């Protein structure tokens, strides 16, 4: 580890998973992750170094632990992290530090089994590893008499490393894993106010995709509360996405045109086709190479295989559908986990019933629908949608 003045800083050890397995590209991923973490910590002073597949993150003492923990829990690429205490090589200091550490996660509930694992690089230190483990085990049991010792398969571990100083830390709090956002390039997420699209965005961000979000607003057919809901969803997703830009297209004229110039059972398909066209144009303007949607096979009429084939045909760039094979309940579980569910279920619809056909086509033919689309002659309206698209920056914290 490089020499740095860390006297007024606290230390977090960050475990890297998939990134540490990368070959020649490892440096690229690590650099992305380092930048993502430091960007979120700004303006708090921080230093981040790497050693043996771990990051050592020093953060100014003035930065609250809760903020650091939130950042690490919402930064893809972090598999786990522990707060570490660095103390002088004295038994009293070690015991005091251990007592402070076990007041927090994962020891805070005082339940289950544990072990103390010691590594002594400095062989001159007066206590041997086994002695350190026994004595610190006593500290834990004094505080949590209901905990039990389990050396082979403990629920929690208190680690001690004796080097030029003594480093103490606990078994890691889970991070989200995945790859650092931006390591995979840029995409455009079609974000509605529903449950699915935020989850789709989250899953692609987990694979390193940086995304702008695109919402189609049709006031007065959809309410401003529906738009606010989408802004709130983008805000909740902001930390996961490393910040984003919410792009809002005024889609009212397009919807009305579709209603007037297509058969009722085709309305939804034509609307999806127009959305794809607009998304393609915006993706091009914003250098996004893929479109991401929350579609899941067979969930609604516009998500049958035939409908998806038609929608796909309207896009010049790949459309990624990370939820394609997921059940609704699985999607809901993730939505709850990432905190978007409660907002998604607010009763502000993102599509007005007036544009929803009673009996939508479920098995459209691509060629026939393409002819219907072309017959609408809607390009001019869609170009205007793209031109007048509004932007709302969403922060990463």
């Amino acid at each position, binding site marked *: 580890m490089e020499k740095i003045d860390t006297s007024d800083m606290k230390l977090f050890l960050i475990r890297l998973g998939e990134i540490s397995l990368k070959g020649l590209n490892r440096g690229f991923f690590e650099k992305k992750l380092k930048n993502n973490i430091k960007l979120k910590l700004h303006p708090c002073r921080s230093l981040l170094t790497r050693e043996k597949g771990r990051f050592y993150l020093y953060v100014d003492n003035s930065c609250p632990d809760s903020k650091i923990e939130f950042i690490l829990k919402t930064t893809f690429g972090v598999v786990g992290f522990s707060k570490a205490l660095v103390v002088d090589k004295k038994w009293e200091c070690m015991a005091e530090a251990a007592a402070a550490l076990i007041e927090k996660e994962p020891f805070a509930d005082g339940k289950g089994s544990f072990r103390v694992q010691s590594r002594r690089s400095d062989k001159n230190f007066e206590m041997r590893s086994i002695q350190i483990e026994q004595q610190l085990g006593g500290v834990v049991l004094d505080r949590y008499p209901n905990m039990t010792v389990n050396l082979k398969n403990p629920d929690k571990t208190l680690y001690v490393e004796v080097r030029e100083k003594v480093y103490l830390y606990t078994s890691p709090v889970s991070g989200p894993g995945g790859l650092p956002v931006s390591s995979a390039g840029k995409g455009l997420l079609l974000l509605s106010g529903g449950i699915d699209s935020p989850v789709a965005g989250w899953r692609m961000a987990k694979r390193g995709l940086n995304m702008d979000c695109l919402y189609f607003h049709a*006031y*007065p*057919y959809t*309410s401003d509360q529906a738009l606010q809901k989408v802004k709130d969803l983008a805000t909740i997703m902001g930390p996961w996405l490393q910040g984003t830009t919410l792009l809002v297209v005024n889609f009212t004229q397009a919807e009305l045109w579709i209603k007037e110039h297509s058969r009722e059972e085709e309305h939804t398909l034509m609307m999806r086709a127009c959305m794809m066209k607009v998304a393609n144009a915006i993706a091009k303007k914003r250098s996004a190479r893929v479109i991401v949607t929350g579609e899941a096979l067979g969930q609604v009429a516009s998500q049958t295989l035939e409908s998806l084939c038609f929608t796909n045909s309207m896009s010049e760039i790949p459309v990624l559908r990370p939820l394609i094979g997921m059940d609704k309940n699985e999607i809901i579980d993730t939505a709850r986990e990432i905190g978007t569910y409660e907002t998604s279920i607010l*009763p502000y619809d993102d599509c*007005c*019933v*007036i544009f929803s056909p009673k009996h939508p086509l479920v098995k459209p033919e691509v060629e026939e629908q393409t002819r219907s689309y072309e017959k609408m002659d809607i390009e001019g309206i869609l170009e205007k949608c793209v031109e007048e698209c509004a932007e709302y920056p969403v922060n990463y914290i």
Partner: protein
Amino acid sequence: MLYFDWTSTSPVSSQALVEYCRVSECYPGNPSSTHALGIKAKEMLEDCRKRFASILKVSPSELYFTSGGTEADSIVVQSLLNNPSPGEVLFTAVEHAAVLENKAVLENHGWKVTFLNCPGGYLDLDALKKALNPSVRMVCIMKVNNVTGTIMDTESAVRIIREYSEKTGKYIHIHCDAVQALGKIEFHPSTEGFDSAAFSGHKFSGPRGTGALWCRRTAVQALSRAGGQESGLRGGTENLPAIAAMTTALENCASELVQHYDFVKTLRKKVEICAADCGFTLLSPSSDSGISFSPYILTISVRPLPSEVFLRVMSDKGFCLSAGSACSANTRGKAEKVLQAMGIRSEDRMSAIRISLSYMNTEEDVEKLCKALKDTYKEFGYGKN
């Protein structure tokens, strides 16, 4: 903003506000306290009760102050749960949620809840006759429907129920949700033969969180007894300033009830003419129909536009209206259910706009409203030229 949503709630009148402040300052004691300030507060409370009761033409000892119409309805309906054995209760199908939503609670306790048909918003008296049977313990009939303003023929309904009781010797409690009646039309629950009736203060320009229950049978029991306030029927320290303000508001309405009614009727007629002009369908009775309705409520259909879309634009233009019943606009389908029970077709239910009027609206306000209704419908590409 021009306000046409008086059925949802009405702004507190200036006289009621003055009274609220005066009573807050001059009567700081708890009416249950035995010291001088408490006794003074108790006297004020009983004075309010007498004044309120005199407007209803009932005995003050039968009037209990509550937190609103919902609580008053719930006290009566949920009192049934104190019966040792469950029976049956009849609700008109168009009751407010304050009554209807008791269905699940009652059914969980073994009660049978039967809805009575109300085609066009009026109780089908034959359906009532058929539904009466020895297990029926209570019938709930609202006076003025909050969605369409239809006025129920409660006189005939009460007569049918009483005749049935005489024949069978089994007394049936008749409860009336009169929230949209009080302060707007003549309503005297005792004279009409009810056993209990619920009222809400904020519907006639009293403060929110106030209401009253008139009840002449002791079979009704408290939801919360607490310190035995309101003769043990509604525990909790009385909100004296709000009760006094509500009483003042009611007196104001009652003193000019006929003048207000006639004026609002002319306003309603104007809106009706406008509706016909635009091609809207009336979901409330028309003034010329010869049937009984409250002029304070007029519901129209702006088919094919969904009501929420139309309301959004009207709101942007400065008009406060609501879709069906405002109390349940957040719970999808509730107002729609009431309209469905009235036999109104699906397309009109989805497009239902409720315009509710007050004597505080001016003719000029209504003219502006009519113009906005017409313009808005046109802007969407509908309506007559």
